[in-house]
């Protein structure tokens, strides 16, 4: 009887240790390049893939030079100026578009082929600061008014989603379209597209 009670106590203690060990938070730092899909919803991998594809398509035309290079050739080496407009999320998921939009902005600036100006939202704060400088900054250091650079092109886009579901299986399709519109003529100068398709299989019974 004593042996049984001792055994039971030991088993309980081992169980408690196992449970507490299992419940402890475990954090592992991993590379941002590691592609991990957990729920099947839009994640960092999708965002990065979209940014990669759009950057590649921006600088590599199907034939001839890219739109930015064509602009430079026709304007004596002057770079085109671009403003980022609205990227509409037409999907049913929450998709933070800023992640890949910032990647694209960074790529344009890093390439040295395109100038990017602050978007509508960003420039309000800058204008407030500039207006404040007119009153409070010294004459030699204040930013002058009326020196903003106007953009020739606006980058617009949208994300669409189609979902097909049957039982525990779900097929999700995302299409990201981006367009560069000439601000003066409304002509579409460049379009980029990236498609993502995933099949998500969820077990019916989970522990």
């Amino acid at each position: 009887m004593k042996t049984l009670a001792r055994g039971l106590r030991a088993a309980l203690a081992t169980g408690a240790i196992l449970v507490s060990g299992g419940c402890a938070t475990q954090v592992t730092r991993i590379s941002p390049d590691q592609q991990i899909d957990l729920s099947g919803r839009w994640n960092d991998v999708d965002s990065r893939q979209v940014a990669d594809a759009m950057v590649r398509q921006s600088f590599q035309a199907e034939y001839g030079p890219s739109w930015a290079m064509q602009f430079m050739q026709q304007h004596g080496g002057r770079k085109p100026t671009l403003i980022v407009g609205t990227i509409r999320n037409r999907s049913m998921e929450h998709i933070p578009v800023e992640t890949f939009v910032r990647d694209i902005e960074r790529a344009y600036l890093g390439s040295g082929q395109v100038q990017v100006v602050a978007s509508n939202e960003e420039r309000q704060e800058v204008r407030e600061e500039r207006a404040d400088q007119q009153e409070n900054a010294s004459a030699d250091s204040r930013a002058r008014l009326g020196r903003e650079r106007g953009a020739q092109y606006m980058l617009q886009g949208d994300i669409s989603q189609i979902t097909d579901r049957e039982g525990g299986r779900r097929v999700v399709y995302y299409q990201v379209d981006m367009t560069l519109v000439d601000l003066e003529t409304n002509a579409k100068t460049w379009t980029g597209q990236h498609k993502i398709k995933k099949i998500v299989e969820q077990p019916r019974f989970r522990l």
Partner: protein
Amino acid sequence: MTKQTIAAAAALAALGAAACAPRMQPVRAVQPNGAIVRSTQDDDIAHARAQGQSERTRLAAEQDAVQGQALAACTPMLCNAIARGELAVGMTREQVMAATHSGPAAWEERGGGGITTLTPPDEGRAPHDVLGEVAFVTLQNGRVSGYAYREPQGVRLVSSAADATAEGTARARAQALLREGDELAMAGDFNRALNYYDRADIISPNDPAVTLRMARALDKQLRPYEALIRYQLFLHQLEIERIHAYGDAYAQYGAAVAEARSRILVLERSGR
């Protein structure tokens, strides 16, 4: 119910369920979950940077050559126009490029026999000078004999130094607005026609042709008092023109003067 019957029913149910499930080929992952795939952005950016840098160097050399040729043989007037970034009659091909800050890739050259036309290959990215978008440039024996701007009212032609002045530009723009106003008046839309005449009046003030059109449109709209004022203003403007031009204006507007006077009489009588 025997065990065999239950087993057969279960097997049938399983078969049925399997038959109803959507059939498809086994899926193949293009990227296994957990795999490390390096982003290609940095490589693409570096490649674009190198490509852009070499292209800009080439274009800068080309632009320097164009500028050198343009400034080597320009008269003071043309040199000033290049410095302002404005096209002018008498410029050479290189001076056109220098004034519009464009290169040979920005133009398509057509024609022959001493007359050539430079047109932008792509309307969307046409070269601009300080005044606007250039629609085409005509060269006669290697010198600009005329050029045109693409404007909201249509194409505006410049074929002499007078056309390129502020007055010449205003006159051409007013003419374009009058043409559009006339089209609307012909269609019976006097409200919109008046809008165009008003705009023409702003950029080319004291023009009897504009005032007469406004008077007619107001008259047709049965707005007698405003029409009367415009007819009187028209005659007054002609008086001033007569002083300036020694009667040329009367010769040009003879019938219009008679019309204005008769309408003034009618409108004054109907107003009493």
